[in-house]
């Protein structure tokens, strides 16, 4: 782009030197990122694609046999775990949105001089290891703990059980616990993009909406929400994508019926040493996420979500 502008402006000047410089500089600046992508994304992706189409075992080696049947086999065997992962990730994304939106609004417009402190607090969990944070939820949701006590006293455990989110009057070892863990672990990914957008929102628009007789709900739905949509889209993507592939939360907080696809890939790759099916599962997961995300972004971009 720089080269074009320059060439257009200085048509009289010797053409070759600036053009060459203009052509090289972006390339040089891009090189580290490109190299990074090639080494850590393109090469592994190709090797993964190849691995998925090979047959064999670690003793006799793997050879490429173009065994596309492995994809059908992977889906036939593990579609429930795929579906479950998508449902959990979607629930967790919705959860982070419901919790994160008011929080982001509050930090952006109502926190005054506490703004920076609150932002640091949102990020603070990242100072601790992901595993430790999730293990902490085992303590929070423990059977003899205050949270479970409160849920039991208020009858909420019965509600959760009726909804099929828990199996008995415990909270740990249930779908509920897994989704809670996902919501907690990915909340900052929702809050930060929302905050960035909401913070830039001109509050005088709210006064203008009021002047035009919009009530609170109308102001939110017709003014704030549409303007914050870019933040919502980024936040949901940043939450949904990693949540769909997560396997720590379901392993530490779930039970034997809450297995997510990440756990299956882990088991097939590390324990069974069935590299082709593990690779095929990874590929299907990647493809599923890309399709969902592309559809979602397109819908969001054409205002149909509004």
């Amino acid at each position, binding site marked *: 782009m720089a080269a074009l502008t320059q060439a257009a402006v200085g048509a009289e000047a010797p053409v070759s030197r600036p053009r060459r410089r203009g052509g090289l500089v972006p390339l040089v600046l891009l090189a580290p990122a490109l190299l990074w992508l090639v080494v850590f994304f393109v090469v592994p992706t190709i090797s993964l694609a190849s691995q998925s189409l090979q047959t064999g075992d670690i003793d006799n080696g793997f050879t490429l046999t173009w065994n596309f049947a492995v994809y059908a086999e992977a889906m036939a065997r593990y579609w429930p775990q795929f579906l479950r992962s998508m449902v959990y990730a979607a629930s967790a994304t919705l959860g982070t949105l419901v919790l994160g939106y008011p929080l982001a609004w509050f930090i952006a417009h109502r926190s005054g001089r506490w703004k920076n402190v609150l932002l640091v607090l949102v990020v603070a969990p990242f100072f601790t290891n992901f595993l430790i944070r999730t293990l902490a939820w085992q303590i929070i949701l423990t059977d003899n703990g205050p949270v479970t006590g409160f849920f039991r006293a208020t009858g909420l455990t019965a509600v959760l059980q009726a909804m099929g989110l828990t199996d008995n009057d415990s909270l740990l070892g249930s779908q509920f616990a897994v989704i809670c863990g996902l919501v907690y672990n990915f909340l900052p990914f929702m809050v930060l993009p929302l905050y960035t957008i909401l913070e830039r929102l001109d509050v005088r628009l709210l006064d203008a909406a009021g002047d035009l007789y919009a009530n609170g709900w109308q102001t939110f739905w017709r003014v704030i929400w549409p303007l914050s949509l870019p933040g919502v889209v980024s936040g949901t993507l940043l939450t949904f994508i990693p949540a769909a592939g997560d396997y720590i939360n379901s392993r530490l907080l*779930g039970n034997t019926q809450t297995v997510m696809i990440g756990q299956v890939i882990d088991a097939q790759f590390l324990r069974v040493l069935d590299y082709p099916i593990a690779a095929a599962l990874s590929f299907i997961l990647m493809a599923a996420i890309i399709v969902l995300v592309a559809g979602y972004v397109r819908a969001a971009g054409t*205002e149909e979500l509004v």
Partner: protein
Amino acid sequence: MSDRQPPEPSPFTTAIVRGALTRRTALTGLAGLAATGLLAACGSPGRNASASGSASQAPKAAATDLSEADKLVNWSNWPEYIDVDAKGKHPSIDGFTKATGIKVNYNEDYNDNDEFFAKVRPLLDAGQDTGRDTWVSTDWMVARLIRLGYVQKLDYGNIPNLTNLEPSLKDVPFDPGRVYSLPWQIGFVGIAYNPKATGGRKVTSVDQLLHDPALKGKVTMLTEMRDTVGLVLIEQGKNLANVTADDFTAALAVVQAAKDAGQLKGFTGNEYTKPLASGDTAACVAWTGDVVQLRADNPQLGYTLGEKGIPMFSDNFVIPNFAKHKLNAEKLINYYYDPKVMAEVTDYVNYISPVAGAKDELVKKDPQVASNELIFPSQEVLAKTQTFRALTAEEETSFNRQFQAVVTG
């Protein structure tokens, strides 16, 4: 035109959308590459393809030994599997350095057999040094490492203290004649329970663990296949030394049934201990050393070892191919086979010592530990122990596949 301005995408969103598009473009590109047959270059030869006949030692497995010039040994071990003093140091390692002048680069990066294998396999497969001179693998992993020709024979000449090896451990099915491995610690597999969560009830059998309604949804089993299925096999009257494929499938069906009935809360690795102590897990399959340590803080915890038989596992020193300090590693093993040194370790880690004479040393130092039946089991308990037989490559794959279908099904 709409009355509302379309929201302008933030740079953030744009970046993400671009990211997705790049991925898609990459995938399209991939298809093209695949057509050129580039994918074919990614196959891996495997061990048997090149080595003629059985999985014999790879021809050039030994690296030039730098032991004399470079007084160092790199040792990978499981977390919290060695003595630690108040300052966080390891007195037995310091003792080794003092006695031999060899520095020990001690790493607690062996968290899981399968994960560690995945980490070192590409290097060993490519004939490269793993940067480690010795590590501690569980028995079945030792069998796999030997099968694949990834480990070197030990030079007994450098390990004179070997005379102290517990006689019953001299010949084991996973390493006949102990050519490649020597035990670091031994443990039993049993059933641990928290009476607070079982309603004061004892859990005395695998049958009760898997069927007692009082434990429903509060039972965990181990992700270690041989330990979990081994317990059930013994309950069914089988001997782990000669398990058949049918035995295995039948035992696994019992686990599957318990899972389907909602009896099981999950399958765990090391992380079963905290929920057991807190009562979130009522009863679980557990390793002896963990139980001894847990009981220090929770004396009420119960532990049952099988009447018919007790699955036993061992974690063993091996020396990988291309290790740069093989001699130093053997000196290290030799050092730990001194009963005095092993007593120091046992006093801290509370697993069963493979070194005869460690008990006599510990009686002087810490009689309470020395009298603990779970650390120094009686002969009649030892007589009941069973070790899972070595599996062929096909069996291992098939068993693992069936087991993981239950765990992640």
